């Protein structure tokens, strides 16, 4: 079988399986945003946005955009039943006060102890923290959804982050285009691999050492 990498939609699909019914969830920008499309029907997930909206639903239809109704990415939302609006202080009390069950974030790097770096490329000298540091520290569970290697094919799962960290030891689970890896006290546990990929293949693209799960299996969607 060909060793194909999973596309962004499939990564999002796998992440969606991690969301429990009734969870309050904050989705970061990029692959994480796609996750909401794959939550099974019949399940209720309340999406939180730093823009001061709870129960974000679908995006507004063209021509129906309202400049006052946006998500954290600045996209226009549709009004849906059960929505609520609040100030930035309340939006972040939800995050910092531990009221958000799961956040899904993108990453530049994740270290072997679950340190997250996702806000700044050192070569630029400027960065966008936004709500990332608050989410990484405050959410009940931090799931990283990302490509396994960067655009120069360098591993993004590293021994120690060389990029400036967003938060230390915060990541619980990584879903990449070739693997699902859990951060545990014993180290990074390789739990699932993409179809056609072996544990050795994944380790070859990972700087940090991986511990093989006794239940290692192919990614199930």
């Amino acid at each position, binding site marked *: 079988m060909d060793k194909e990498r999973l596309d962004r939609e499939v990564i999002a699909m796998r992440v969606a399986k991690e969301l429990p019914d009734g969870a309050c969830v904050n989705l970061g920008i990029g692959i994480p945003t796609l996750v909401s499309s794959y939550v099974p029907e019949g399940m209720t997930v309340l999406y939180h*946005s*730093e*823009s*001061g*909206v709870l129960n974000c639903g679908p995006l507004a239809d063209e021509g129906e*955009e*309202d*400049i*006052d*109704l*946006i998500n*954290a*990415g*600045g996209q*226009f939302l549709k009004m849906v039943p059960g929505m609520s*609006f*609040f*100030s*930035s*202080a309340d*939006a*972040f009390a939800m*995050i*910092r006060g531990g009221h958000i069950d799961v956040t899904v974030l993108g990453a530049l790097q994740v270290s072997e102890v679950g*340190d997250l770096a996702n806000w*700044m*490329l050192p070569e*630029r*000298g*400027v*960065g*966008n*923290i*936004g*709500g*990332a*540091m*608050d989410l990484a*520290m*405050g959410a009940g569970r931090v799931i990283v959804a990302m490509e396994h290697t960067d655009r120069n094919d360098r591993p993004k799962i590293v021994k120690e982050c060389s990029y*400036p*960290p*967003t*938060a*230390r030891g915060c990541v619980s689970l990584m879903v990449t285009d070739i693997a699902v890896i859990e951060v545990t006290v014993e180290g990074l546990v390789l739990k699932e691999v993409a179809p056609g990929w072996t544990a050795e293949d994944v380790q070859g693209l990972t700087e940090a050492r991986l511990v093989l799960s006794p239940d290692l299996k192919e990614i199930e969607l």
Partner: protein
Amino acid sequence: MKNKVYETFAEAVSDIPDGSTIMFPGFGPAGIPRNLIAALVQQGARNLTGISNNHGRVGNQMDVGRLIEAGQMKKMVCAFTAATHPSQVLAFEKMNEAGEIEAELVPQGTLAERIRAAGAGIGAFYTPTGVGTELAQGKEHRAINGREYVLEYPLHADYAFIRAYRADTFGNLQYRLSQRNFNPIMAQAATITIVEVENDIVAPGSIDPDCVHSPGIFVDRIVRIPPDGIWETPV
């Protein structure tokens, strides 16, 4: 009672001196006090410090980016200092690199809480956000119940520019949808709070008291946006 209603934006911002610290709410396109910003560009005050979620956006919209481009800002305190897309390089980034404008980068939740703390008379607070990062360097740390926290101080301003949906002559404000964002906390954290309002300024009692988001005690000046407000950005 002192009259809070001003006829023009120019009048409402006329006394803002050089060197002032000003709060600019807004999240994406929502809740930005565009008319007050436009008036301040015309008024021309310089060496200003801005407190804002970001430093303005690409394109032609009226936001704090205009004040930056006009060279009126000496410092920005915000949660974003880069463009939202890596391929873009905004005026702010170039000026920051050239040493023409100073930047203090603050996590968005810490920014909100520092503003809230200023409005509520809090001396300082401990938060875990930022611990273990370069933003916590040089700041006081403290372990509380086994968790590490960093000390953060309130952010006050001389002026806050506010955008509201409705207002009465007492200064009671109501916001609409996600327009609210930083508006209510910034209204509380400034010495002088100036509001641009989208609808006619109504008599007290016309806004349901249960729907007042910012009580008038926090509001000093209110200006009605003209129905043909030229600084409205269409979606």
